[in-house]
């Protein structure tokens, strides 16, 4: 009886020590890994800070500048005589700056209406994983555009404010997987002076933008804005763009087909005058090059 007790006790301790030993060789890291993951923000939901025309939920990294050259060519249905629209081009040149992880500003100038534009984009909530994560990004963008072309009628009393228009946008989106991102962007565009008094000063639209990543460096993109008012039958249409993002080492090329010519919110939402159904589409591209303005402090090891 006594012998058995000793034996059982010995066996128990042996088992215990073996168990401990087994743990030791296999999982040293679990001894210090607290298990809880730190909060990390999702990056690379889109290749660029714009889907095609509209703002995307992506932000520039702090301390970087994005130099953007945008081109929209003529209509494809102009045929060979105009080289399928490539003979004419409208362009916008812009500089965007990443200030903080969730704040960026930008300025640009378009040839169409010699328009200057500026905006800021701020995300109070960004999609993240880990502790206290949130499943989507919520951002706001607000901008102002200024028409600098000569007054249509210089003989009348023209006001500076007549040159201005504003837009306000909410960007709600989520990177659902490594491949797929979707966002919705309710937008309001206010134009101080409209051409006709049948046109509203405030135009409301709901935009949608998506990306489908095909390979590491190529993605399909699309963006569409549905206008609830301000659409004039036979004059203006809802802007739809479908394109491909190609990322090389330092550049992002966004090639696309679109019925919109405008390259700022006021222009492409209010003044898209051609439609897909009739082949009145244009080829266009956005070229983005990111520069590091502020280098991160190098730490010695």
């Amino acid at each position, binding site marked *: 009886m006594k012998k058995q007790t*000793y034996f059982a006790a010995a066996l128990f301790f042996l088992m215990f020590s073996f168990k401990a030993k087994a743990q030791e060789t296999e999982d*040293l*890291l679990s*001894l210090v*890994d607290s298990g809880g993951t730190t909060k990390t923000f999702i*990056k690379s939901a889109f290749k660029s800070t714009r889907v095609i025309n509209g703002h995307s939920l992506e932000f520039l990294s702090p301390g970087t500048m994005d130099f953007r050259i945008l081109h929209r060519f003529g209509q494809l249905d102009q045929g060979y005589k105009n080289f399928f629209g490539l003979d004419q081009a409208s362009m916008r040149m812009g500089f965007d700056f990443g200030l903080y992880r969730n704040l960026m500003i930008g300025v640009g100038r378009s040839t169409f209406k010699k328009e200057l534009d500026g905006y800021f984009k701020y995300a109070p909530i960004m999609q993240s994983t880990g502790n206290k994560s949130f499943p989507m990004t919520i951002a706001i963008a607000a901008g102002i555009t200024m028409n600098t072309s000569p007054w249509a009628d210089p003989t009348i009393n023209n006001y500076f404010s007549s040159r201005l228009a504003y837009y306000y946008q909410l960007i709600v989106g989520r990177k659902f997987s490594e491949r797929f991102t979707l966002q919705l962007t309710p937008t309001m565009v206010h134009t101080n002076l409209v051409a006709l008094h049948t046109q509203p000063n405030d135009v409301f639209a709901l935009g949608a933008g998506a990306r489908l990543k095909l390979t590491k460096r190529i993605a399909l993109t699309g963006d569409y804005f549905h206008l609830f008012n301000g659409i004039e039958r036979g004059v203006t249409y809802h802007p739809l763009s479908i394109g491909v993002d190609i990322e090389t080492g330092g550049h992002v090329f966004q090639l696309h087909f679109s019925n919109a010519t405008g390259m700022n919110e006021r222009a492409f939402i209010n003044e898209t005058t051609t439609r897909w159904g009739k082949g009145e589409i244009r080829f266009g591209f956005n070229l983005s090059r990111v520069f590091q303005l502020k280098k991160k402090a190098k730490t010695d*090891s």
Partner: protein
Amino acid sequence: MKKISWLLIVLLFAGTVFAQDKYFTKTGKINFDATSPGSPEQVEGIHKSVLCVLDTKTGNMQFSVAMKGFEFERALMQEHFNENYIESDQFPKSEFKGMISNNSSVNYTANGEYKVSVKGKLTIHGITKDIETTGNLVIKNGKISATSVFTVLLADYKISIPGLVADKVSKTAKIIVNCLLDPLR
């Protein structure tokens, strides 16, 4: 009596498991440099919160590195590192699990400096390979400083460098490990 002494031996054996022989850090540093010779810009990252545990009794040594923690001088490079090369969303961690082969020659209780050889399995980008390298252990006032420099071939871990950036990114990465280990309580 004989049985009791046998039991005591077993007890002792079980007891040693709880002795103070594990060292760790959560703030280890790892640098890597994958700059091609003649590249105009440095392709290098630094990580300042590497997890490392060393069992001085067995010589077991393990590292864990959250890949998103690598910091680069250029934000875009960091983005490309995570999105295109390492694919950090898919493979968030790199790990090393191995042994100090000549552990018995290290006296952890006294100050000193030792050359050690380390052998084990390195997992990067979801791919595990056997590696063998040498390192340095400096024991000073109950703390262990572990350093090592070695090179990995990126192709071994299925990290492909496209031709377009071949003049900037090298096919191999030099990895510098620098950890100061405290006793684990």
